[in-house]
């Protein structure tokens, strides 16, 4: 066999085998599931047990299994709102919002305005990027319960999708109050549900220039970023307004702006031990924002001088 044929066969063979093996692979089931499965086997018509097992599947991330069980229950009792809701949640989890909306339409009319149903519908529309419809359902949730945490978070995520800082700020303030704990609004945590791009804001814009120097003070790199994220909470604006080191006022066609420069020297710039790809500006433990798009390999002794320029429209 020619080595080109061999190489070709090996690579594509591997690829085919992995495609076959990867798709149907399901995680090992925990003890609780085994136990419930055992009970369900002996009581195949007991809808409560079947529902409990389906919910456990969902909680263990086995949405496909949960859906087939929900379907089994719906075959026996088609108007079961908890089951319809569970199936809709799973469909959203699997990234199938259209199907989720279809099944939610079958919810009995007396249950249609329950908060969890409205939230699930709103989330389906959010996934479909139908913002108006999503907002309509989230608003209904907040009309029923103005303090609903899920409703407020959903509105913030919608604001993120719409890049609406004012809307995000309003709901973040409602969710966290005026003085949140630092960990609550840390934009680096998780998938950053509350962080928005700073430059989309109508009031503020910011840029960052960062010098990377080695232990001998020699210049290694200089990078800039406009892609700066922040949490649009009133507290953040307070931090920004009070943290001025250098302030200057300029006027142009777009209005009057106040420009601040904040210079931060970091002796330990590394977020990861390998690369420098973000910078933070902190104040009283609150991370204001960070920038990325500039991963540079670093070594021991490297440090950064970050110069933030924040521009605020004041007239």
């Amino acid at each position: 066999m020619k080595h080109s044929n061999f190489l070709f066969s090996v690579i594509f063979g591997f690829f085919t085998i992995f495609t076959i093996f990867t798709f149907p692979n399901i995680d090992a089931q925990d003890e609780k599931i085994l136990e419930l499965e055992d009970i369900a086997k002996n009581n195949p018509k007991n809808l409560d047990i079947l529902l409990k097992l389906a919910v456990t599947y969902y909680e263990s991330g086995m949405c496909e299994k949960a859906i087939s069980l929900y379907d089994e229950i719906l075959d026996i009792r088609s108007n079961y709102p908890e089951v319809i809701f569970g199936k809709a949640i799973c469909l959203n989890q699997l990234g199938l919002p259209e199907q989720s909306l279809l099944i939610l339409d079958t919810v009995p009319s007396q249950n249609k305005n329950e908060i969890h149903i409205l939230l699930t519908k709103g989330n389906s529309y959010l996934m479909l990027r139908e913002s108006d419809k999503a907002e309509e359902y989230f608003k209904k949730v907040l009309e029923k319960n103005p303090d609903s945490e899920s409703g407020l978070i959903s509105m913030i995520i919608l604001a993120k999708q719409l890049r609406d800082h004012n809307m995000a700020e309003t709901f973040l303030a409602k969710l966290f109050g005026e003085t949140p704990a630092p960990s609550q609004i840390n934009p680096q945590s998780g998938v950053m549900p509350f962080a928005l791009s700073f430059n989309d804001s109508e009031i503020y814009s910011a840029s960052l220039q960062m010098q990377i120097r080695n232990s001998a003070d020699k210049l290694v790199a200089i990078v800039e970023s406009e892609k700066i994220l922040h949490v649009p909470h009133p507290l953040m604006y307070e931090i920004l307004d009070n943290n001025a080191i250098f302030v200057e006022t300029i006027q142009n066609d777009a209005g009057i702006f106040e420009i601040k420069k904040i210079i931060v020297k970091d002796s330990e710039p590394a977020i990861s031990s390998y690369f420098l790809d973000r910078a933070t500006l902190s104040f009283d433990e609150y991370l204001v924002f960070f920038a990325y798009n500039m991963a540079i390999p670093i070594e021991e002794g490297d440090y950064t001088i970050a110069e933030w320029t924040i521009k605020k429209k004041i007239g």
Partner: protein
Amino acid sequence: MSQLNRTKNIFNYFIFIFSLFVVGIILLSIIFPALIISTLGIHANTLDPFEIGYNGSLILLSNFIILTLGIIYYKNKFPKQIQNIISKFFQKKLSKKFTVVIILIILLPYVVFTTPELFLDESLQAPDYGIFLAAKEKFPFGKTTFTEAAEQNDRYVRMILLIGSLEIFQNVKLLPFLGSIALLLVTYIFTNEITKNRLAGIISLLFLIQSYTFLRYDSFAMYENFWVLFYVLSLYLIYKKFLTSPISYALSIFTKAFTAIFLPLSIIFVLYSNLKTKTKISILISYGIMLGLVITIWSLDASVYDNILRIDITKFFTAIVKTSYQIRFDTLLLASIFPLVIGLIIRAKHGYNIAVPILFLITGSIFAGAVIEMLSDHFVILPYRFIPTIVFFAVGIGILFNHKVDGKIHETQ
């Protein structure tokens, strides 16, 4: 015929000037890291644009020394004995068996020393692992409001291979590591194929395996080398099974959409190959069909790519500048980048046509990263984006040291 030669010459000169431009910016940024960004950047500052970079003098000096030595050798100005030793070494014909032994000697310690990395916790090493896990939940066609996860799910081949590695071997790094080993082998085979010289292949393999960037990323699951592997394989298959080349290219695109922008590089490579005109046309048509299919699949799957594009020209220049920062520890590459470009231009001027597309692959792959940064700020440009550049650089080194008598084997017909 003369019209054809004239067109070819214009193409050659375009690629030479383009390559010198790209390499010139990189060298300038090594010597004066602040020069271009402080001139073109958005940020008003008081930086000295002519402050010399931390290794500016060293890189400049080494480029000068390597270039000087190259010219002395090229002009036969070394003492005869040294000249003969070098020439004899590079003209050495390696047997198949001997080559296999050398490759094993190179690869075995590499595998032994890298294997412990497979047991490092990917989630602690790469923040993107969380995004991968979120994407895995929705794979293959599920929708999510989490754009980063949606983008990962548009890279079907990568997801299949990573999920496969995780589910079957309980180690997400294993297949990516095997992919890196395969990339080393494909680099050897590709260089050997275009030079018909096993020694050139070995030199390219050695160059790649010493690269800091390659070694840093070779076992990372999140920054795997499959996309480079499939792309280099697609170039190799142009010579071997040309109709399968677009399949491998499509696999590369579905591993990392970034390689879609390499299409002009592949087209130039095909045009400069020694294949018949009819075959070249067939390959180009098959590439067109492949690209059409890729775009169709993305459209059907409501890909996120059309949501994250914009155009910002200044980002293009600053991105080329950043190349020098991002491959700062690839000292051998930086120390020899200018001599290599000059060497390949000289080889091309002497009728060794394959030097032209390889030169274009080296500088074009750097350029491609800058184009991406110009088009979108969605992606964080990590140094592993330059692995194709390092691979083509390795192939270029192999070509430069290829002293086979029948070196003109790949002239355009």
